């Protein structure tokens, strides 16, 4: 039991946070923004009265929600080079960096989950407001942008943030592509120095502190929003 060396953590702090945590947080932030934008569009498509808009969106969301994230990560890792080649008209699969590949994966995957939240948000705005918008002569996009979506976002902020905390934890799965995110960095040090116990305990502690602090913030925000309404 006395053979543990927790000094290894201190010695690798720079690498862990400058390389690993930066990657994790950038990926989380960008994928959250991309996912919310794409997810909102998906939600609007699902709520559309045109079958050719709502059916593909429903199919996409249900498909994404019924397969594991790891399988989606593998799918996109191999698919993105082919799609890129198809778009650019290149005869060969193009090279896509680790960051771009995982950003596309998480944006596309989380969009399915964000779209379910935004759908509930849009439906939480009463129909009368939409009709009022149309009565004022606004078109669909104006009604959405000026009347419905601002309220939908505000009602759903706590749930969107909770989903983003889940996204933050999910990004650890890029480990399977040997990418140096926070967990990847910890695991590289762990294997180089043979310090699995120390590094994985430390990684768990850091993930816990970040997620726990964020979830406390969300709770406070929720209480605040609940009072205003």
């Amino acid at each position, binding site marked *: *039991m006395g053979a543990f060396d927790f000094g290894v953590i201190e010695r690798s702090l720079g690498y862990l946070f400058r390389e690993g945590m930066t990657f994790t947080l950038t990926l989380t932030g960008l994928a959250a923004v991309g996912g919310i934008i794409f997810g909102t569009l998906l939600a609007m498509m699902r709520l559309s009265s045109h079958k050719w808009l709502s059916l593909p969106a429903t199919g996409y969301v249900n*498909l994404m929600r*019924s*397969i*594991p*994230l*790891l*399988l989606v990560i*593998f*799918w996109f890792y*191999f*698919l993105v080079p*082919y799609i890129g*080649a*198809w778009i650019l008209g290149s*005869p*060969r*699969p193009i090279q896509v960096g680790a960051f771009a590949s995982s950003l596309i994966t998480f944006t596309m995957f989380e969009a399915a989950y964000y779209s379910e939240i935004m759908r509930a948000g849009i439906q939480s705005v009463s129909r009368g407001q939409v009709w009022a918008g149309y009565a004022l002569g606004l078109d669909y996009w104006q009604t959405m942008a000026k009347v419905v979506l601002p309220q939908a976002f505000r009602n759903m902020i706590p749930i969107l943030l909770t989903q983003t905390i889940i996204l933050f*934890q*999910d990004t*650890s*799965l890029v*480990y*399977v592509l040997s990418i140096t995110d926070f*967990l990847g960095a910890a*695991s590289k040090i762990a294997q180089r120095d043979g310090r*699995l*116990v120390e590094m*994985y*305990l430390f*990684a*768990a502690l850091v*993930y*816990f502190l970040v*997620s*726990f602090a964020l*979830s406390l913030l969300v709770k406070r925000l929720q209480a605040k929003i609940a009072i205003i309404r």
Partner: protein
Amino acid sequence: MNYNWNWKIFFEVSADGRHTWLTTLFIGLGWTLLTALCAGVIAFLLGSILGVMRTTPNKWAVRFGNAYVEFFRNIPLLVQLFLWFFVLPELLPKGIGNSIKQMTPPWASFVPAVLGLGLFTAARVSEQVRAGIQALSRGQGQAGTALGLTLPQRYRYVLLPMAYRIIMPPLTSETMNLIKNTSVALTIGLVELTAAARSMQEFTFQVFEAFTAATVIYVVVNLIVVNLMRWLEKSIAVPGFIGPAAVGGGAH
């Protein structure tokens, strides 16, 4: 583009030299379902106990339940599995730790995977159970007290039977989450469905056939589970109370 499709690959002999790739995928599915089933039993039992604890009048029981949920919800599942697989054997006394490490291949990954997934999912189940109990009107518990039931009897005969019926829909999605989450166990060496598809991709280079097959299998499993749970929900519904039986009216 120069991708060579070859759907016949599923009937070629796989890397183990005995089964076809199709059989390999289904063996993977078997491990996925077995892991999910074992973890599900742990999650359901432990989650129910924790959920009940968090609704009792005992302050320390509530605190313990809350702490458990915060702990298991705020660490990524992957890291939790690493803790069970890499860290736990080192922290236990040498003899026990070594015997854990020396388990034969599928079990050395299977046991930590079941434990990790079970305890992780228990936190989520306990949230549902607590919400289900709290969704019941206070009068139900009070009626139980008025009838002279003890606290355990109140839970057993009054609160839990209704609470479980209320939380069937969220429990259905937790079941599906659990099945999907078993894929994370591939990182500690469990060859479940996603890992089987991955090894097929690595050996045959037929990337898209392998992942398409895995995707189709997951979707089919999902549909089966959803329908099974819906059937269960219907068959245990109390006539005239919440649930599908009440919606139709005249079901009884």
